[in-house]
């Protein structure tokens, strides 16, 4: 039976390397994926994930299981991602993601991999809060109450962000969505 995160955290606080390894195997990939979709950049995502786990090790002795560890990790990752997004806004425009050409005739010819790339680009083009809500609920599989907690918003606000984000994506990806079904 898989050991609970809370048990592993108690072992981590005692310096148990095997517990650290178990938590890395369980959560690192998910945190990297969350940061990658939120930031649209794999290198930045790995930097964020590394920082998240450094904070986990540093705070292991003080950590209390008020929330699920996965939720806490997403919260830390989100704060780090938002810092980077804020810094990008201060950066020159040429550092921003490339705008996506929405021409349906081209899009319908794309294979699934290309569709994935386009979805990633469209996600990156969404307002950050809408993108984060979709990433947390659709890709990370967090329950609505957990996603709302990570984002520090109400469930109603979360649903509004999700609906607006998905509506925008549907409009931009209409042809791809019909082709992938």
């Amino acid at each position, binding site marked *: 039976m898989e050991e609970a995160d809370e048990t592993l955290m108690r072992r981590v606080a005692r310096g*148990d390397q095997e517990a650290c390894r178990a938590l890395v195997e369980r959560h690192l990939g998910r945190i990297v994926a969350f940061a990658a979709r939120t930031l649209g950049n794999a290198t930045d995502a790995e930097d964020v994930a590394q920082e998240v786990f450094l904070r986990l090790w540093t705070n292991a002795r003080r950590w209390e299981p008020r929330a699920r560890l996965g939720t806490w990790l997403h919260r830390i990752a989100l704060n780090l991602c938002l810092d980077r997004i804020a810094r990008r806004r201060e950066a020159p425009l040429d550092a921003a993601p490339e705008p996506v050409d929405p021409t349906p005739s081209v899009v319908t010819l794309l294979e699934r991999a290309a569709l*994935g790339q386009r*979805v990633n680009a469209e996600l990156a083009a969404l307002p950050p809060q809408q993108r984060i809500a979709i990433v947390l609920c659709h890709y990370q599989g967090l329950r609505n109450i957990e996603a709302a907690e990570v984002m520090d918003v109400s469930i109603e606000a979360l649903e509004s962000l999700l609906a607006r984000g*998905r509506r925008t994506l549907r409009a931009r990806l209409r042809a791809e969505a019909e082709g992938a079904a």
Partner: protein
Amino acid sequence: MTPTRLHAILDAYGADPARWPAVERDAALALLARSPEARRHHDAAARLDAALDASAIDVPSPALAARVLRATPRARVRRVERWVAVVAPLAAAAALFLWIGRSPAPAPLTADAIAALGTFSTPTDTLLFSTGSDLVDLPGCSEGDLGCIDLGSGWTDESTRRDDGRMRV
């Protein structure tokens, strides 16, 4: 569960009931089963879900996991211990080397310095004898019930033995 609420759920969470709010899931499924309009809405949400699922993210590199594990508290302590084990002896050796290098060299023993020491005409034995010091117990001689061990004249000069069983050296 109203059709409006079901549409709102589909718009927000998509077509997979696993993503729907747990408390509304059963009612939403029941409405979906009996409403053709809700199923059309559900199908549209499923198409968007399928497009979103085309997005793939690379698996994190093994190097990242290694970096993360190198930062665990115990791993950091081990690295410090290894560093101290290597550096501490080197530092001690360097400190000793510097201390020796900074110590003043002894002045050369010149002929004048030797002359300044003068000449000692009195034997050292005589100097010690005159002070009456440097008395040591003879083994066993102060213990009346154990008797006195005869060490023989070859061991010490009998003239140095005193009545109290002590001996001058």
